[in-house]
């Protein structure tokens, strides 16, 4: 059975292959190229992740203040509700 790794072939421009001269050097150069390319991609990915984290942190830092503000408003409105209900409640008429 032929393994998948053995089956994978790369097309190399012949003029380049002939210029370099041997397969081992070609393979080493491809490997170095692939590693450099991978580094480049990983740098971009980590940069994007760091940026995303930075943006999310901004929201995470802003929200507790907003929540506190909303809680204050809610408590105030609940108090208002009690007062309004008291004001609307019909007063008992003394006989």
């Amino acid at each position: 059975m032929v393994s998948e790794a053995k089956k994978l072939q790369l097309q190399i421009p012949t003029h380049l292959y002939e210029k370099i001269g041997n397969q081992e050097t070609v393979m080493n150069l491809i490997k170095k190229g692939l590693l450099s390319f991978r580094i480049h991609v990983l740098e971009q990915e980590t940069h994007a992740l760091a940026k995303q984290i930075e943006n999310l942190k901004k929201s995470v830092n802003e929200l507790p203040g907003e929540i506190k503000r909303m809680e204050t408003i809610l408590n105030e409105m609940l108090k208002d509700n009690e007062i309004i209900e008291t004001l609307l409640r019909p007063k008992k008429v003394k006989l």
Partner: protein
Amino acid sequence: MKTKLQRKPQKVTLINVNREISELIKRTNVQVNAGFVQKLIELGMKIDCTEEQLMQKVSELEERKNILASELKEIATQLTYLQSKYVGLRMQISKIFHDNQVQVFHLCARQPSDKHGRLLSASLIQKYLEYSKSLWH
């Protein structure tokens, strides 16, 4: 009449690659054609670092990426919790605001007999009139 120039097909040589290169190619997630291989070879020629140094750098970056990905997940969870709390509060406020507003309209139609009640009633009416203009802005 325009003549379409056709590029002469590039002559290529096929080489078998080893498992290591095959794995690296899988991770690149791009189509590895002759043009891309040429760029890789040219890139390989330009790099001064050794293979070991490059592999070390890849491993460091992969580790950093994993750390950042888990940090992102943690922050996203935290943000989701805070957002749902915020949205829940806004919904509660919205409901109580409308209840209060309706009741304040009823207050407008009544005139409490005592002075304190009249003042309280007037200030609440004023407050909810202003709230309705400015609360969510």
